[in-house]
């Protein structure tokens, strides 16, 4: 019976349990729940493990697969490290929400049908919104609201797509499909919203940096990677994804280069990294899919690490802008080292996890002789080093001395960082366990002399470009307009304009109708009705006018219909 339970439910149930506990019990629970989930994830065999009937459909809420297990493992690991990182500092509501979010993401990774997938998909949105809100600030509230709305919009697109797909095929199974009809295009679009694909990508850098230090760590792992997972299952080899992915790669780099907020730099860099994965999915060969899966796994760890180090800085200094930071390596050595390890890993420096995962995608592009894709991916790799590999550690830990001398963060935070730093290097040195988890057999050898030389040249000369153009990279107190301008600036104004027009119109209709009535009937009633009083409208009168209007309209329509 136990293997029949969706493993994510452990975390979700735990989320409801957490607020009821306190003290040591709560801490023990925070650390134990993800590990229990991890155990459960590995106990689920391949194939459908549970079916149930819901509405008119037979669902498979739990279906084991290699790929699902890989993602679920990374999600559970992240929940553990994130829990450790947050256990003493974060509000309990934040950890609870984060666990619900993680549990739902694991639920998606094991969803065997589209309805289950959608259910967990929506639960993820709720969990993540609460994670953002737990920061308790006004800006977090507003950003969280925008975040939810964008995601629920994505959810709408997805739901319509799913229902349309079920109506067309009669099948609820979640399996490989092609974007060949409106409903499947909608499913693809719904997935891509969560992946941070254009044009709605702005939700990510908008919302994540507003959350609390530990909350951002949690957030970085689930939403986008779940999207990568579902794209990989549903739309592997869908050509358009190559270009979507490449756009994301360069979008992330360009915006990160312009950004001043350290966690927002990392947020753009998430889009950039997911871009690599999406490109891999678009290429769709076994090598490319292995690369995307491995990169997603590695990415969850090193991006978690980077955001932990940024979070540690924020927690210790209360500052988040690069213009306010700098020179922190003096007093925060552990954080600095961990941050650098994360930066190396994201740039796929040899001996880090990024090195053994990302270039599988480039290799796949090369094998398929996709010249343009290959060259762009190489340029993207260089750009990663530029914006995340150097820019982030340089402006936070080095550059000018900001005068700040905060100590390293509390033990649980640096323990979590050290764990992930260890994993980043461990997977880079000994990638066999990771390769063993990948969906297809791996025939890729990362450590060849050609690959090493290529990578060193590319990265070091990117570094040269950075230092040569350092004056150009000077931080400014600015933000960069993105698509969110439309719903943060333009739409609210439009709505306000429309709303005032709307109530004005209603008033006018009521007014005009009553004036008409007056014009017709005035002669009969003039003797007892002072001039002008009819021109005013009273609530009951106004409401009654609508009754009359509706009755008249329906009568006319019905008679006309009869006369035809």
């Amino acid at each position, binding site marked *: 019976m136990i293997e029949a339970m969706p493993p994510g439910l452990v975390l979700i149930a735990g989320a409801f349990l957490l607020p009821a506990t306190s003290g040591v019990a709560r801490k023990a629970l925070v650390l134990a729940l993800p590990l229990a989930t991890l155990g459960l994830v590995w106990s689920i065999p391949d194939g459908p493990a549970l079916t149930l009937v819901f509405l008119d459909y037979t669902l498979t809420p739990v279906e084991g697969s290699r790929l699902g297990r890989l993602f679920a493992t990374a999600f559970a690991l992240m929940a553990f490290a994130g829990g450790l990182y947050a256990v003493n500092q974060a509000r309990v509501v934040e950890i609870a929400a984060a666990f619900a979010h993680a549990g739902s993401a694991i639920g998606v990774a094991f969803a065997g049908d589209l309805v289950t997938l959608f259910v967990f998909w929506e639960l993820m949105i709720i969990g993540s919104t609460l994670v953002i809100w737990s920061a308790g600030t006004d800006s977090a509230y507003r950003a969280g609201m925008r975040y939810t709305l964008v995601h629920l919009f994505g959810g709408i697109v997805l739901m319509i797509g799913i229902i349309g797909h079920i109506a067309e095929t009669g099948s609820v199974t979640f399996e490989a499909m092609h974007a060949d009809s409106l409903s499947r295009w909608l499913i693809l679009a719904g997935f891509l919203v969560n992946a941070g694909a254009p044009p709605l990508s702005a939700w990510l850098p908008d919302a994540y940096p507003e959350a609390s230090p530990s909350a951002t760590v949690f957030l970085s792992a689930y939403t986008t990677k779940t999207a990568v997972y579902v794209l990989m299952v549903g739309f592997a080899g869908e050509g358009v994804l190559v270009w979507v992915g490449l756009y994301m790669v360069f979008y992330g780099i360009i915006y990160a280069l312009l950004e001043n907020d350290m966690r927002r730099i990392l947020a753009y860099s998430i889009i950039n990294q997911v871009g690599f994965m999406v490109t891999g999915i678009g290429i769709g060969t076994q090598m490319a899919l292995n690369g995307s899966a491995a990169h997603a796994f590695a990415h969850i760890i090193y991006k978690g690490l980077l955001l932990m180090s940024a979070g540690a800085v924020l927690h210790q200094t209360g500052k988040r802008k690069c213009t306010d930071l700098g020179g922190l390596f003096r007093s925060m050595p552990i954080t600095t080292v961990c941050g650098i390890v994360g930066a190396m890993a994201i740039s796929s420096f040899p001996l880090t996890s990024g090195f053994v995962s990302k270039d599988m995608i480039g290799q796949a592009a090369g094998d398929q002789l996709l010249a343009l894709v290959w060259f762009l991916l190489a340029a993207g790799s260089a750009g990663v080093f*530029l914006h995340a590999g150097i820019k982030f550690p340089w402006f936070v830990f080095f550059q000018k001395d900001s005068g700040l001398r905060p100590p390293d963060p509390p033990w649980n935070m640096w323990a979590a960082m050290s764990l992930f730093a260890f994993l980043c290097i461990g997977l880079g040195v000994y990638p066999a366990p990771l390769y063993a988890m990948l969906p297809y057999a791996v025939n890729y050898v990362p450590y060849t002399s050609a690959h090493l030389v290529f990578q060193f040249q590319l990265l070091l000369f990117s570094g040269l470009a950075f230092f040569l153009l350092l004056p150009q990279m000077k931080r400014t107190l600015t933000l*960069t307009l993105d698509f969110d301008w439309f719903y943060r600036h333009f739409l609210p104004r439009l709505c306000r304009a429309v709303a005032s027009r709307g109530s004005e119109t209603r008033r006018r209709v009521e007014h005009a109708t009553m004036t008409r009535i007056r014009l017709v009937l005035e002669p009969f009633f003039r003797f007892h009705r002072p001039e002008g009083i009819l021109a005013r409208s009273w609530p009951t009168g106004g409401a009654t006018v609508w009754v009359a209007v509706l009755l008249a309209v329906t009568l006319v329509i019905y008679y006309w219909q009869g006369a035809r």
Partner: protein
Amino acid sequence: MSADVPKDDAHKHWLVRTKTIRRLWILFIAALAVTVLFDFIVDRHGRFGLDATFGFPAWYGLLTCVAMIIGAKALGTVLQREDTYYDHE
């Protein structure tokens, strides 16, 4: 690298002393040279021709990075706003 006044150097962290920085630059340039020189002994067997040229990753990485930085700056002139832009919602 930085334009700090040398006379305070003694009080500074060793990593940001002018001398250390100069040494780091020398080390960096040496590393650059070594990686390029490795092109003579390692066959990187390119697939598309251009990527087989001498020191391709080096010059390609440098050029694309310069291009990306310039591109970003150019875009920034259009899209950057004061960071209080959205505060008056």
